[in-house]
């Protein structure tokens, strides 16, 4: 009997405790949900976190507007950005940049024609105030980089791994450029003989396709001579005796008639030849050159050392 009463009493206490807890929870919920609207002054616990602020990229400048490339070499292109970090400029951890032809994308593979990457731009924290730094991102842009609109995207990261990027565009201007040897040496040629064939390579060292114009002179422009010589009774070689072929080689010994049939005569006026020499696209091997083939006929009455001039001209071809 005593045991039964003790059991009942325990159950009573347990139920009372649960009910009490239930009431406590009920009012607690009320307080949480509508407490602020009931009218009493309620203090809201506020949590203030002034987090690290991401850097701000301002004023991306690429070579002050346009990029003029250099023939047969690289051009150092500076894509600079002013970076502001209100957590002091020492918070700027890393700045990277990509310079690419706008018809490609930020994620495209690096390629000398279209895409360049600089993963470690220099950061000058001495620039401006304590929040401002100057990031200098240099790129060695090759002469055969595509002409057109290019994009420079600068990415700045701070020590809290906040990352921002901004971009600006510029124009890579078309570069018409050619490379030729400084002279064509036919060697020793006897009178009434046609020289051996001389092969002269013309290279495209720019970023536009071009055609080749050719003209020759002896002493002065338009004198209808190819060369003037030190000895002999004539001392001149007429311009038509100097001959060229811009497409095919014709090796071996040739007489004048044979040479005339396979070579064009040089002229005192500029003759534009369809050359369509495209610009380089292979990073490893320079394929942007064409060979031209030359011979000279030495007439009677000429001896000694002979010297003349050839003008190799380039003009952008319509195909480019």
């Amino acid at each position: 009997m005593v045991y039964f009463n003790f059991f009942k009493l325990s159950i009573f206490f347990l139920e009372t405790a649960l009910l009490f807890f239930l009431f406590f929870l009920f009012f607690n919920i009320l307080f949480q949900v509508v407490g602020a609207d009931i009218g009493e002054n309620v203090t809201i616990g506020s949590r203030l976190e002034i987090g690290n602020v991401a850097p701000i990229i301002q004023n991306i400048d690429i070579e002050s507007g346009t990029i003029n490339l250099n023939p047969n070499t690289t051009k150092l292109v500076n894509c600079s950005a002013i970076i502001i970090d209100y957590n002091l400029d020492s918070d700027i951890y890393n700045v990277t940049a990509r310079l690419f032809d706008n018809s490609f994308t930020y994620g495209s593979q690096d390629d000398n024609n279209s895409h360049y990457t600089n993963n470690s731009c220099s950061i000058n924290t001495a620039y401006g105030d304590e929040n401002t730094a100057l990031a200098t991102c240099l790129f060695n842009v090759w002469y055969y980089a595509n002409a057109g609109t290019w994009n420079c995207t600068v990415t700045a990261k701070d020590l809290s791994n906040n990352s921002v990027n901004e971009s600006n565009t510029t124009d890579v201007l078309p570069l018409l450029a050619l490379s030729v040897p400084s002279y064509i040496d036919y060697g020793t040629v006897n009178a009434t003989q046609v020289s051996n064939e001389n092969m002269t390579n013309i290279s495209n060292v720019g970023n536009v396709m071009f055609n080749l114009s050719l003209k020759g002179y002896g002493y002065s422009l338009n004198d209808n001579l190819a060369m003037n010589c030190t000895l002999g009774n004539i001392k001149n070689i007429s311009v038509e005796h100097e001959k060229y072929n811009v497409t095919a080689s014709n090796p071996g010994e040739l007489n004048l008639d044979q040479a005339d049939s396979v070579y064009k005569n040089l002229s005192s006026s500029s003759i534009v030849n369809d050359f369509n020499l495209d610009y380089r696209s292979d990073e490893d091997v320079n394929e942007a050159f064409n060979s031209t083939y030359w011979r000279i006929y030495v007439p009677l009455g000429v001896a000694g050392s002979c010297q003349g001039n050839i003008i190799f001209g380039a003009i952008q071809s319509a195909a480019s």
Partner: protein
Amino acid sequence: MKKNIICKKRTKAILVVSFSVFIYLFVAGLVSAVNVGISPATTTFEGVLRGGYSEKSVVISVDSESPVLIEVEPRGEIAQWINYSFDNFTVSRGRPYSLKIIANPPADVPNGNYTGFLRFMTAQLGQGVEGHAVSVVRTSLDLAITVEITDIEVRDCRAYSFEVRSVEKGDDIIFNFEVLNKGNIKIRPRTVIDVWDQDQLEILKSQEFSEKEVLPTTKGNFSLRMDSSSLELGQYWADISVVDCYSSQTLTFDILAPGALKAEGVLLGILTNKTAEVNTNVPIEVSFKNIGEKDVEAYFKGKVTLGDKIIQVLETDKMNVPISSIETFSLFFTPTEPGRYIISGRVFYSGKKTFESSTVLEVVSRGFALKSLLLPLAYIVLIFLIGFLFFKIRKEKKLYVNKLKQIKK
């Protein structure tokens, strides 16, 4: 035996020397090539008036350490109209030459596109060889030029780089700016300068200028002087408006006492979170830099607006800002409803004020609702759990009491 070895050694040496000479001559022959280029490869003078003026520039460069002489010659139907800064010049590696090319078409030419080119020709690049027939090479690059003649006048310009400096009383105030004439007619840009008082309530002085001429496609530097004798010491605002170019800017300057140190500061920015939740404290930081010649006492005064309503007025305590240093004013704002808040204001210092700056704060309620519902939800789950336990206890109690009653029987 010894002689034999010496002979072999000599032959070897001669071979090595001959091979080296051959390689040198071969390489020398290859590297004697000269690379010359022009950029851009073509140029077009667009929309040039008859008897008008237009200019462009082209860069000539070579890949040669020694200077290369370049001669310039115009060709084609436009040869008579094309002028350039120099007939010949030298270029070398790292020292490209920028040549200015000017198109001056005659007054009686019909409308249309006219073409020609400018030929850039190098001097002789090599020399003859004794006893040989040698052609020395010169290179030429033809810059294709198109001139588009029109009879439609275009007036278009842009004014930029506006600047004014504080002056001592009695000195002229000098306003500097640049004008780029993007049209095809000469312009004398009309410029109006209005000087306002410090509170920008009243125009104290106004002056108009239109003396300097800018040719089409060229840039002109302007330096306009205004008499300051009628202005008292203090801060002023100036609205410079280049009316023909639809360009204007507001600047500030001081009239200083002779020998006085200049107080000058800039509000670098108002910084806050981009987004916040309703009923949370939002920090606001205002950066001010003293760029003047003396220390200043500065404070920030601004407001927070939502739509047209001013929600809160912001004002900080005064703070001493030494020369060349940046100080940050910290404030807090607690938005009570969602929306797009504008925080704006100026820094006041030494009787002067900066340009107004502003920032935007987006306040949302979504995050708050979710967070605040999490706890009550947990309570409700707990209540259900307790209810379930209560029910279970009662059930077990009933079973137990029944069992006891059966045992008693």
